[in-house]
């Protein structure tokens, strides 16, 4: 009996959480389109989520492209198809690795920070204080982060892709001696609008997903399982947010791909 009770409480908790996450997204979306529009908070959040992530994106993008060049060259040369190296590197970056890895990096850098910030505001009653001043925390805190996520992720993904393609060039052409002209002409020939479109849609969705999960987790820290108390509550919920957000990115990636293909 006790066992069933436990399953029941777990199930109820997760249904509850799913419900409030859904309502959270709804209110945030509503507050994104509702006037008044303020530029400054959006710019600030775009700086935090986007600009400050550029270095990490450049770095990881370059190395991802480089390893793709390395692996791709060795595999392709077995079939004598080194000429396709450019399109192999760029297609995997633009369609898959760019959006996914950029999103994972942003989750680690900005998502965790976002969750902790909102979580601290919750446990120190700052969110209650906002509500009592008739200032909607969705409008004031959350909506600018969503807009910033939607702006930043596609741009970061684009940077990741471009840097990755040059990383692949550096290794494939510079180091291993693939043909330079072939590298770029195969990109030109094989990458079409649909590939870019797919990468763009993915990065957009991941932008929303990251901000949604990370800010909602922080926002509801006081309702979290195991009790959201103090520093430990915030740290646990931040870990949860990063894990859930990363897993969701990969799961969502599969379904998006299957829809967009």
């Amino acid at each position: 009996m006790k066992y069933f009770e436990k399953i029941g409480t777990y199930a109820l908790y997760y249904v509850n959480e799913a419900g409030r996450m859904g309502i959270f997204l709804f209110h945030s979306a509503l507050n994104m389109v509702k006037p008044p529009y303020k530029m400054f908070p959006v710019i600030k959040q775009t700086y935090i989520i986007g600009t400050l992530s550029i270095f990490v994106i450049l770095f990881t993008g370059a190395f991802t492209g480089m390893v793709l060049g390395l692996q791709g060259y060795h595999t392709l040369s077995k079939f004598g198809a080194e000429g396709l190296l450019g399109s192999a590197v760029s297609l995997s970056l633009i369609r898959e690795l760019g959006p996914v890895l950029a999103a994972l990096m942003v989750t680690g850098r900005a998502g965790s920070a976002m969750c902790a910030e909102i979580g601290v505001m919750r446990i120190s009653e700052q969110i209650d204080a906002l509500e009592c001043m008739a200032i909607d925390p969705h409008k004031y805190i959350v909506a600018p982060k969503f807009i910033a996520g939607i702006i930043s992720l596609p741009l970061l993904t684009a940077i990741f892709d471009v840097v990755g393609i040059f990383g692949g060039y550096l290794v494939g052409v510079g180091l291993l001696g693939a043909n330079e002209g072939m590298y770029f002409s195969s990109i030109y020939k094989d990458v079409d609008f649909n590939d870019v479109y797919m990468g763009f849609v993915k990065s957009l969705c991941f932008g929303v997903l990251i901000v949604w999960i990370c800010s909602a987790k922080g926002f509801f820290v006081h309702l979290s399982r195991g009790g959201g108390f103090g520093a430990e509550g915030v740290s646990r919920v931040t870990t949860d947010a990063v894990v859930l957000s990363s897993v969701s990115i990969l799961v969502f990636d599969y379904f998006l791909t299957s829809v967009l293909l």
Partner: protein
Amino acid sequence: MKEPVIVQLTDVRKSYGRQEVLKGINLSIVEGKTTVIIGASGQGKSQIIKHILGLVKPDSGRVVVYGKEINKVSKRELKEIRTHFGVLFQNAALFDSMTVYDNVALPLRERTKKPEAEINRIVNEKLALMDIEESNDKYPAQLSGGMRKRVGLARALVLDPKIIFFDEPTTGLDVAKSNEIYRVFSRTQAKLGYTSVIVSHDVPKIFKLADYVALLHNGVIQGCLTPEEFQLSDDPVIREFVETTMGPLYSSEMEV
């Protein structure tokens, strides 16, 4: 009762786990008057405030604010009701990554369309009122507890609210400062005519400010009386409270 009642709690109950904190609270807050809630620490005074603010849902009973049941109204109506509020939390709940100035300016920036010059004027006026204008650029973590309270008070008063809720406004302040705060309260209330609900341990000083005194004891309100009635009451609970907080001096005076 001729004055309109703007907040009405009817048989409000609230439990946390096995602990029953509020055991049927009945309380009316009269417009334009000052109601002071007193009671020992941990009795649930802050909980009463949070129920009225709509931050906590009662297990049973009704909390009616401006004619609307606060935990049943829509989000929009709730926001509308809260535009009249000025709130000081017990822990002040300042925005800890903003300076003192920005904390006080925030309600003006978010809720009004005033130009920055006027906001500047109003904020400086409120900070001067609370005697903390020199701490403008400090962050809440750099302030003492009493200073934080005063920033919270400045923030609560900045939009000229119709009803204020102050949870222990003078706890952590020295006597001179708390006297000054009380003077500010009676001055601003005379000017703006707001309704106030104050939780305080500052007995008997707070009685000078109070129109009604409500004693919270064992989860129920023991009478909501005028300060004179309260001090003369022969309810045993109130008598004991009066005697322990004010000493036997008052009661012997009374018996003469």
